[in-house]
């Protein structure tokens, strides 16, 4: 079945909403990258963890939470079926 046609270009508000969704999709990817990054810090196959690492991990964690909290209100609203799955 053919899907109904979607507009090719959008007004400013829906455009921003879609980019917000893109950002929300990218956030876990960024998070995974940042959480796996310390694996590359030490040359040996086993990495030793120091208090610096503890602080790093908690900072990344907090940043992810903050971004998710910033995104959440904008994502909750525009859940209409027509501009779904851009």
């Amino acid at each position, binding site marked *: 079945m053919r899907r109904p046609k979607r507009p090719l270009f959008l007004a400013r508000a829906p455009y921003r909403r879609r980019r917000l969704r893109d950002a929300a999709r990218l956030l876990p990817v960024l998070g995974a990258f940042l959480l796996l990054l310390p694996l590359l810090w030490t040359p040996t196959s086993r990495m030793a963890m120091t208090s610096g690492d503890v602080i790093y991990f*908690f900072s990344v964690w907090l940043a992810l939470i903050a971004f998710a*909290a910033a995104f959440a209100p904008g*994502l909750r609203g525009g859940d209409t079926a027509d501009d779904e799955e851009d």
Partner: protein
Amino acid sequence: MPFNLLVLSCFLYVAFLFTVAFVVEGRAARGRLGWLRSPLVYTLSLSIYCTAWTFYGAVGYAARSGLEFLTIYFGPTLVFVGWWWLLRKLVRIGRQHHVTSIADLISSRYGKSNTLGVIVTVMAVVAATPYIALQLQSVVLSFGVFASAAPDGSRPLDPGQIAVWVAAGLAAFTILFGTRNLDVREQHHGIVTAIAVEAVVKLVALLAVGSFVVWGVAGGVADVIDRIEAADLSAWQVQPGRWTGLIFLSAAAVICLPRMFQVMVVENEDEGHVARASWAFPLYLMAMSLFIVPIAVVGLDRLPSGSNPDMFVLTLPLAEGQGALAMLAFLGGFSSATSMVIVESIALATMISNHVMIPMWLRLRSGAAAGDDLRQVVLMARRLAIAAVLALGYGYYHVSGGSAALATIGLVAFLGVAQVLPAMLGGIFWRGATRTGAILGLVTGLATWAYTSFLPSFGPGAVLPETVFTQGLMGFAWLRPHSLFGTEAMDPLIHALFWSMALNILAFCLGSLFTFPGPVERLQGAAFVNVFEGAVGPQRWARGRAEPEALLVMAQRILGEETALSLFQSAARAQGKEGFLPDPTPAFLDGLEARLSGSVGAATAHAMISQLVGRATVTVEDLLAVASESAQILEYSARLEAREAELTRTAGALREANDKLTQLSLQKDAFLSQISHELRTPMTSIRAFSEILTEGDLPTEMVVRYGRIIHDEAKRLTRLLDDLLDLSVLENGAVQLTLGLASLQGMIDTALTAARQTRPERDFQVIRDLPSETIYLKTDADRLTQVFINLISNARKYCDSDRPELRIVVRQRAGRVTVDFIDNGKGIPKDSQALIFEKFARLTDANRAGGAGLGLAICREIMTNLGGSVAYVPGQRGAAFRVTVPLRLERLAA
């Protein structure tokens, strides 16, 4: 601290939870939930992810393996932060399809297959049993800590006895609040609220112990950081493989754990809550793990070596003489354990009753027991299942003796439930995933997990003989449980994770690629994958031969008399009927099935209705019919669209034609009035002078003069009529052309000579370029000359310069010759340029030189007939006309 006080406070705490659950259930029954449906309660209820394993075990984990414990929280954090990918869809599907458990989700997606439901149920039970045992063990251990610390010599309880009491108490609580009613969507407000309360208790307890450790025992944050630096770092090393693998594993587990699915999807009240939980739940997790490292480090520092790090949360405050704090910590751990056990057993009991017990019961007593209330059977099945799950957990605890480190069992369980992940993700993102593929994937994953992780977790020689570990199954070295296919370098857990997921996904994909799904399966697949695109596909039921009364009886057995009657009544009213028996239309059957599946699961509800409807289900032909129907509609609307466009075009053409006709009619009117005027003027003077002549008595010279005037006017009249005739012939294209080769120079010479008669008194300078004029044209020379004469005469007549000149420029280009006649007068004003070629167009009467204003109109018609054109060229500092004529005029087909 007196041990009896501990037991008493435990009882009081449980009583408090009972009260909370009871009050909330009461409010829910009256429909007054209010803030209890808030995202806060939802987020807090998600905290059953943090079990006793987290509460006690994380510290032990940190003490043993350093930061690796963080991975258990990073996975869920990533899943929740990325809720837009998966959780949103999962929750939407769960709400739309009345999913009651993760087994129900899988079974419903793959064509309501009960086989799949059974497989997932078995998997969940096998994976959850050690996990429940773990919770019991943690409670027993924590009791043990207090008992051994009791200085007053009070008799410590036997650990086994404690475990029995805890298990029984939990079973009672769960049965009481978990099986009160058979809700349409398996929601248990009382329990969810109690769990939210417990979530707060365990967070507060852990934060309190952590704060005490950091600021009470150690000297603040800086001191703790120093201690971390000073701690033995050799154990604080993380293998990259384990780090990555564990993050993946915990991410998979948070989606697939039956209890997480229960609170996340089944108990979800509002999809908006997920948005809030997307950051609030990771925040909760972070708060829970904030003090784990300090507690572990300080515990290792302060407590005697050899003390169990899993119990640091309790033993550290006790060792520092903080009895009340230890009590709080104990209640936190107790909360973690109980909330997990309660929700897990509810989720498992729902699966067991919906996918194992009820189908079996229906098969055993098919048809015979139409009268009895199935609800009681379902509820009884649930109660039995809850008791059985807890009994299993206790049995496992009893058999294993509670020796293994907590974290290991937790990870093994995680890996077990993660086997559902491929079938689940494939089911909601890939329409090509089939039932066979899912069964193959699940069974392969389950078998690999059991062989590489679950069975070895009992220790060598316990279930699998020692020789299997060293020499492989049946002597095949490549089948050793910890190094399948020779992969010896891997950590055992990552080895199990890698191989079970790889083989699972492989079997799932291959099975899906090579099998053909049944119609219900395809229908469900489309509905799940395209859940955001609204309703898809045909209705699942053709109008069967079901008796509405039989349906009502069945619905009453599951939903209860009152609910079923009101459901049927409203359906009947929607169909415009009175009474309680609606027609068994497909829409009604669909709605009824959805309603029933909320109570007994999709597979059972489907089976029950198809028993009554007779015709089992939708067929491939139905699917195709719907597909072709919609294709026809599409085609039809496309045809309509095309026709509409055509109509619009036709209408436009008609409007244009109408405009042109109106214009022509106006032109005709103007032409008629113009021509009568032109004819009348000479006629008037002829009549007047002939009247004078007829009166006689006139001197001869007067007669001669009047006679000449009459003659002149008659000549003018004749000329006018000639012109009109000429124009009419030209316009009709009926003109006879005499084609021949003629020199352009000769024609211009002739024209100049002829035109000299016009205003012969003026001295006109003609500028020509003779060589360029030596062109021979094949055309009608007389007609072309006529055009030239006309243009030159016009120049002579109208050029208002004192020293008039006329430039004649000839150019030849691409088979056409252009001849420009440019004078040095004022030229023609811009707004008149469009008019000059019209009939009777004269710019001013002042320069009127006897013409009727037909000259240029005739020129234009002649040029059209000669295959060329004549046009006014603006911007030449004078009037400029360009005649374009083809070099060789081919005779047009007449």
